């Protein structure tokens, strides 16, 4: 009952208001319309009513610039390689890394060193087991790395650099003593990034391969410790 009364009152009020709006009260000043048609002085009755909201801003075309991906590291390293039976020798190499995600990366390395003289050669005077060319030790590795302990390194109060201790392992090939050998490599390294594009590395790896270069078939362990720098791009 109450609802019906309320509805009735509301409809009366609505009718009255619309009536008021349509009436031309004598005391009401008629303001000139802002519409362009009004300014010309003639009001076209048949023209469609002007739209209430006219879009004044054109739709902005967004050009999506390509986001650079800096997942690739390229650099060089230098250090010491202990060639089993042939002494510890300087080693130099290059590395190419691709970071697949925050945990994993793949790495390709190429390195070279030159084997020294064995104890036997040193003690027995003028014996040469290998020629100079055969003493060249070259290798490449294809590895998978895992950022085991990512973190930050702080130097002083104002400098923080991202870093990671990583484990790495892979397969490759070693050319030494005039022979090619399938090799397995594994080790660990530490990477620190002073800037977003530069990384410094310390790596320790073991290159293992089977060889019979001194007449006996044996597993050779060649430990390598290097420092290096890479650039991200």
């Amino acid at each position, binding site marked *: 009952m109450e609802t019906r009364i309320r509805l009735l009152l509301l409809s009366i009020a609505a009718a009255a208001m619309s009536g008021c709006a349509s009436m031309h009260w004598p005391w009401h000043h008629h303001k000139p319309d802002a519409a362009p048609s009004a300014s010309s002085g003639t009001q076209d009755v048949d023209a469609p009513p002007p739209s209430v909201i006219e879009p004044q801003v054109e739709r902005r075309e967004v050009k999506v*610039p390509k986001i650079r991906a800096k*997942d690739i590291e390229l650099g060089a390293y230098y250090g010491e390689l202990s060639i089993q039976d042939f002494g510890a020798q300087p080693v130099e190499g290059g590395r190419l890394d691709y970071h697949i995600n925050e945990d994993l990366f793949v790495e390709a390395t190429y390195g070279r060193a030159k084997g020294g003289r064995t104890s036997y050669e040193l003690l027995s005077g003028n014996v040469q087991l290998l020629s100079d060319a055969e003493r060249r030790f070259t290798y490449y590795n294809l590895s998978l790395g895992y950022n085991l302990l990512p973190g930050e390194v702080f130097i002083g109060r104002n400098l923080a650099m991202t870093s990671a201790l990583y484990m790495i392992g892979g397969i490759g090939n070693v050319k030494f003593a005039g022979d090619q050998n399938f090799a397995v490599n594994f080790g660990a390294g530490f990477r620190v990034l002073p800037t977003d594009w530069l990384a410094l590395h310390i790596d320790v790896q073991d290159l293992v391969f089977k060889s019979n270069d001194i007449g006996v078939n044996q597993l050779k362990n060649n430990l390598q410790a290097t420092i290096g720098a890479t650039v991200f791009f």
Partner: protein
Amino acid sequence: MLALGALSLAMTPAHAARELLQLFVTQPYLELHTGPGRGYPVTQVVARGESLDVLFRRTDWFKVRTERGVEGWASARELQLATLADGSQFQVKMGDRAGFASHRWEAGIFAGDYAGATLIAAFGALSITDNLKIEIGASQYTGNVSDGELVEIGLAHVFMPEWRFSPLVDLGTGYRWVQPKATLATPVDRSDEVGYYGVGARFYLTRRFFLRGDFRKYVVFTRTNTNEVNEEWRLGFGFFY
């Protein structure tokens, strides 16, 4: 709000000149980490409606700069909720199952056996469609009798790329170099054309990773009357991008 957005866009022409992507945060806040990893601490947040410039990407993290000039790392998973200036969603290619089914590049490494010799191989592939890929490969084998290298180019057809385990067939051609072991009587280096056909399978592991195995038959077009036929099997992992 829209007017404010338009105003801020109009007032930042320098950003457009540097060709950096500008994004608007839509979630209550976006966390900025100090490094590109989940464990790095969150030191800044960007509030809803604020904008940021994307400087570059590293794996699934984006280095961004806020309106206030603060730089930090946002994860792709969070940043894909942001919108571009025209209101459309920011699209990020994520390393997931959908990416495994449909991607443009893949690469990987293998270990295996080529005619009794130990094999190391690397491959790269470009997807023409989700099913069909152009593959290039390089491999090296070390055996008791000889060492050798192979380079090859071919086509691979993946059946059901959307399956976690998807079989494939491949066919191609290439070149092989052989160096017989120096200990043998007549060490003569040879190079020959090869053709191959094979079957294989891919198995999605996690993130951008999958396992891949292949079995191939190589026909080596030697200079003698009979062609050499070699079998190869290999197992390795690949990743897609």
